[in-house]
Every structure is written in C-alpha cells, then in structure tokens.
C-alpha cells in the first residue's frame, strides 16, 4: 500500500531539517553574525511550517516580526557591541558545558518520548475553523478582538512601554563636559609640554607608501612607519599593515633598479653599494646586544 503523501508532509520533511540545522548552526557558530544568520534561516523555515499548518496570518507575522524586526534589532546591537566578539572557551564553572549538554539531552529525550506518545488521534485540521469566519485572518481577529480584546489592549500598552523604556535605557547620558576647541588646544599643548606629543594634526595614511588606502600606514622620511597615520581601530583589529619591511622593499627595489640602469648607462658600479646603504637606511638605533628586538624591527 502506498502511504498518502500530502503537501503538508512534504513541507514538514523539507523545512523541519532546515529548522533543526538552523538552530544547531545558531548554537554552534563561533561568530555572532553567523549565529544570527542561522537563526533567521530557522525562523523562515518555521514560518513555512506555520503556513503548512493552515496559519497564513502567523506565517506572515513570523516573517515580518521575527526575521524582519527582531533579527534586524539583533544585527544592529551586534554592530554596536562588536561583531568580532568571539566567545571565550574558558569555563567559569568547571564542567558546566558537559553537565548542561547531558541535562539538555536528558530533557530532550524526556520531551520527545512524552510528546510522541501524547497524541494518538489524527489532526482535525483547520478548514472548518477557518471557513467558519471567512478565512484565517478573520478567524484570528474574531478571537483577538472578541474574548481577548482586553489582553490585546494590554499588549498595545506593553509595546508602548517597551519602546519608551528602550529609548530611556539606550539614551546615553553625557558623563563628562563636552570638550570645546579651547579645551582641546589646552590639552594638546599640555601634552606637548609634558610628553612631547606633536600638537599638530595626525599624518594621513598611505602618502609615502605604495597604496593610498586607509589601512596602509604612511612612511616617515627615515623609512619607518608612522603608526599614528592609521586609525587605532584598524590597528587593534590587526587589519592594517604595520610592519614596514614590505612597504620599504618597494622603495628599495625601485631605487636599486634606478641605480642599476644608471650603472649600465654610465659604466659605473654603484648598485651593490646603494643596496647596502638602503638596507641600513632608517634602521632604528638600538642598544648593542638587543638582537631580538632588532630582528623584529626589521
């Protein structure tokens, strides 16, 4: 006998594995953005299951409210909190990960065994309930604006209060006085007097380097890297190239080539001498016996 395969069965076996995969991806991803993406996929899969369960209104609400609004809020918060905040693998409570995995596995077995034995009758379906009011949306509205109208009004108040509370909570109080131009001048002059920091503007990136992109530091006239020419954020993230060997090698190659061409034309032999000179050029003066640091610097 061929079992009856309905569209609902197909939808279940297509979207249920997707939902489980999305949930597992959310839990197991190292990066928060990957987690958010997996969760969004899981929510879309669940929405499709809602549609197959004769709940078109909740299908649309799921897509709009969850994947649209809620996940967008998550992504925005992630943007502020920092996308690259990966979890530390250090356990605060010893053995917590193993213990919670065992406990959750036990709970899952309990729930699955209990729930799979609870229902013995087949589903009644929602055709009757949906057609009784002229459609699913109308049917849900009959309840929401009928017996549950007070709860519905309360949720309206709840959402309003939540929006206000979010505005109040996320509103940043100015903790320090705003720094005016006068204050800035004073601070920079004081720093110049005390630490010798240059009071002028910071150098722009990539002026003397091969590229003029923002993550290439400028080279100082002595061939070393001007570290303050790139944004500190890029430096912290490790995006920017701060070793100057790569940058300087281009200068070295260009000048050596230039001298070699000159040698050929004039019959002199300056190329090796200039190359040796360029190797010494710009090397920081280090105290003797500090070979390790010197190696790093080069």
């Amino acid at each position, binding site marked *: 006998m061929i079992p009856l395969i309905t569209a*609902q*069965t197909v939808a*279940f076996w297509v979207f*249920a594995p997707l*939902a*489980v995969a999305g*949930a597992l991806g*959310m*839990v197991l991803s190292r990066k*928060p953005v990957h*987690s958010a993406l997996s*969760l969004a996929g*899981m929510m879309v899969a*669940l929405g499709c*299951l*809602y549609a197959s*369960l004769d*709940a078109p209104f*909740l299908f649309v*609400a*799921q897509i709009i409210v*969850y994947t649209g609004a809620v996940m967008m*809020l998550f992504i925005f*918060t992630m943007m*502020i*909190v*920092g996308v690259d905040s990966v*979890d530390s693998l250090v356990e*605060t409570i010893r053995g*917590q990960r193993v213990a919670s*995995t065992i406990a*959750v*596995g036990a*709970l*899952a077995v309990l*729930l699955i065994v209990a*729930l*799979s*034995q609870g*229902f013995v*009758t*087949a*589903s009644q*379906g*929602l055709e009757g*309930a949906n057609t009784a009011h002229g459609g*699913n949306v109308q049917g849900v509205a*009959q*309840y929401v604006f009928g017996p549950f109208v007070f*709860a519905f009004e309360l*949720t309206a108040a*709840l*959402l309003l*209060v*939540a*929006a206000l*509370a*979010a505005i109040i*909570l*996320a509103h940043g109080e100015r903790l320090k006085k705003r720094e005016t131009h006068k204050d800035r001048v004073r601070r920079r002059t004081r720093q110049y007097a005390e630490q010798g920091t240059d009071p002028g503007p910071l150098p722009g990136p990539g002026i003397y380097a091969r590229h003029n992109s923002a993550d290439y530091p400028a080279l100082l006239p002595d061939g070393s890297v001007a570290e303050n020419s790139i944004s500190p954020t890029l430096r912290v993230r490790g995006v920017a190239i701060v070793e100057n060997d790569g940058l300087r090698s281009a200068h070295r190659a260009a000048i050596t080539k230039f001298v070699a061409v000159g040698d050929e034309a004039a019959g002199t032999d300056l190329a090796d001498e200039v190359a040796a000179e360029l190797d010494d050029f710009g090397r920081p003066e280090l105290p003797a016996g500090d070979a390790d640091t010197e190696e790093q610097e080069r």
Partner: protein
Amino acid sequence: MNPAAYLVLSAILFSTGLLGFLIRRNALIAFMSVELMLNSANLALISFSYANGNLLGQVGAFFVMVVAAGEVVIGLAIIMIIFRTRRSASVDDQNQLKY
C-alpha cells in the same frame, strides 16, 4: 501528518535553544537562544491549534510573538547599556550584578 511530529520538532528546537542558553557565553547569543525557545513554543501552539481544529492556539502564538518583540527591545537595550559600562558582551563579565 501526525501532530506528534511537529511536537517532537518543537521539543528538539526547544532543547537546542536551552543548550545554547546554557553553554554560550556571549549575551547576544544567549538571548538569541531564548528567542529560539519562544519560537519552538509557538510551533507547539500552532500544531495544537491544527490538531484540535480551533484557532485559540494561533491566538496564543500571536500573543507570544507580541510579548517576544517587546522583550527583545528591552533585552537588547539592557545588553547595550551593560556593554557601554563594562565594555564586554560576555555574561561572565557581569559579575558585579552578583550582590
């Protein structure tokens, strides 16, 4: 389709969410796991509605959705202010809330 299949799926998703909430240290991901658990409860409500042939389960899921939206707004605002003061989104760093 047997309604038990949907309930089993809902149980699996709920357990996954609980696992994520327990083992992940990033406050945002822990919060996403709570959302996952709410979603699995919604799936259970909607499949109950389908199995019993009335729309009350869908109304319940609708209210869960509304409350979850409000909860997300407040929760994320709290995560943001904690991040602003502690410079960290890890739940382990919020140990000043202990006493």
